[in-house]
């Protein structure tokens, strides 16, 4: 793993005064988000490291889901929304909020898994293949290969390999959510966004999803919004604590949970509010 200091790294300099950047995947700078006249995010800056799990925690309405949905421009689907600031995706450093950036291209590089499993009412196979088909893959052999790979990576292959062409809705809730993960990673996105992926699942299904997320970070950068502090503690490398639309603290998960720098973080983590 890359040795990454616990504090915000983008400003750190080595002895020679040259910036040492750990591998940053997503660089969020001064991001504000408005829903109509209502400002939901206030000047959030945060560097998401590559190949790690970054958790976003905070009480309901703190803006963590809103922040997540800025990253794949989901807010563009609804009228009256406005972004300010920039979100750069590395390598390359293109600003995905920049003018002329097509939200559809952004969404092809960010996979997303939602709160409730939302498979299409199609077969298991077609669910996983859909993203690939959108990107123009249509040869049966290529599709077969990629569908199998995605299902193996989401630990679902052995359970569904004999019934790939049955309806996805016949799967259990936990299996459906793993199918949604397979659908999100089938296209090899740069980042996978999880929006409280286990809030509708039982503890066993939840632990399977958590294992998967930890396993996934070898191949992809993960950002997860969660209501469940223990979950953030178990699976994330870094944690961002948000409150009232602002980023209060961001750092290494172990450090945040044992020795938070800000009193609000401590209050939230120790259960005094939220």
């Amino acid at each position, binding site marked *: 793993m890359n040795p990454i200091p616990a504090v915000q790294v983008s400003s750190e300099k080595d002895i020679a005064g040259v910036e040492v950047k750990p591998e940053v995947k997503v660089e969020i700078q001064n991001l504000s988000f408005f829903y109509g006249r209502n400002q939901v995010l206030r000047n959030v800056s945060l560097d998401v490291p590559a190949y790690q799990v970054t958790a976003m925690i905070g009480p309901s309405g703190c803006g963590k889901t809103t922040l997540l949905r800025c990253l794949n421009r989901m807010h563009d689907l609804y*009228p009256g929304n406005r972004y300010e600031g920039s979100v750069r995706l590395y390598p390359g450093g293109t600003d995905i909020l920049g003018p002329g950036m097509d939200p*559809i*291209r952004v969404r092809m590089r960010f996979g997303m898994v939602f709160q409730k499993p939302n498979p299409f*009412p199609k077969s298991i196979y077609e669910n996983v293949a859909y*993203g690939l088909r959108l990107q123009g893959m249509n040869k049966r052999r290529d599709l077969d290969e990629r569908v199998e790979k995605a299902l193996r990576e989401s630990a679902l292959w052995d359970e569904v390999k004999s019934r790939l062409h049955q309806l996805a809705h016949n799967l259990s809730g936990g299996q459906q959510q793993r199918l949604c993960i397979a659908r999100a990673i089938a296209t090899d996105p740069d980042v996978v966004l999880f929006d409280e992926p286990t809030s509708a699942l039982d503890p066993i299904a939840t632990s399977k999803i958590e294992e998967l997320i930890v396993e996934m970070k070898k191949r992809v950068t993960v950002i997860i919004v969660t209501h469940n502090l223990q979950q953030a503690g178990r699976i994330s490398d870094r944690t961002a604590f948000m409150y009232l639309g602002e980023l209060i603290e961001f750092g290494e998960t172990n450090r945040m949970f044992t020795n938070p720098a800000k009193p609000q973080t401590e209050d939230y983590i120790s259960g005094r509010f939220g």
Partner: protein
Amino acid sequence: MLSVGDFIVLASQNLRKQEARASRRRSIDRWFGRIGLLFTIGTLGVLAILLLNLAASGLTRIDWQFLLSFPSRRAAEAGILSAWVGTILLMIVTASVAVPLGVAAGIYLEEYAAKNKWTDFIEINIANLAGVPSILYGLMALGLFVYQFRFGQSVLAGGLALACLVLPIVIVATREALRTIPAAIREAAFALGATRWQAVWHHLLPYSTGGIATGVILAMSRAIGESAPLITIGALTFIAFLPPAPILSHAPFLSFDWLFSPFTALPIQMFNWVSRPGEEFQSNAAAAGLFLMLITLGMNGVAILLRRHAQRNIKW
């Protein structure tokens, strides 16, 4: 000061009052149930009598001769061939205009259009259009299609008039079918990089086909029984020939001359017979009415089957 005994007396009086009130409430409840049942039976009874009456005087008239003969001055030789062929041709024109336009408008309003005052205005007016008396559509069609576009008193003009009439029904049915699809499904498609059109074409339309088809069939069964707009544009009541065939035995094999042919339709044929004196023509009218009714019931049956079939694989 009240003693304990007084309290007990008061409490039991209270209980008795409550009990009396409860039994009154229960009896109102029971009576409403009975009255409601009576009204339901009454209404269905009227419908049943209507159907039976129609069947009693018309059923014996329905045979191959009746279905395959042109109208005639002699009631016994008259039939509904030109009427049902006309009805089918009208329905072809109506469906092929109203379905694509209505479904496209429904998709646009539900999935593409911004929600603002302008779309609210359009929405209210679509609801209003569904309530406009059908004869007004006939007048509009007479002015626009028959005279302005010079389609004449033809199948095309009639079909277009009926298409205008049922267009709001198709639009509303499409929107309602789309609205039953959860937002999470749209977001799942968009999150993978689908455009709005891809989300519509790959997901929303396939998942709402059952609802849309049901709406379309209900709209068609409304159109099939309409006579006022057809009479207004001048459908003939006595036609002893069929429109030119749409399929030819020689190149180019397809012909659209039938679109410009004069026509009659089942409700008009029925109207014509009803207005004639003589028992036999009345029974012809009843037979034509029965036939029309059977087609309508059949279409509604298909709508129910379609909905069941389409929903079998889709659970949200």
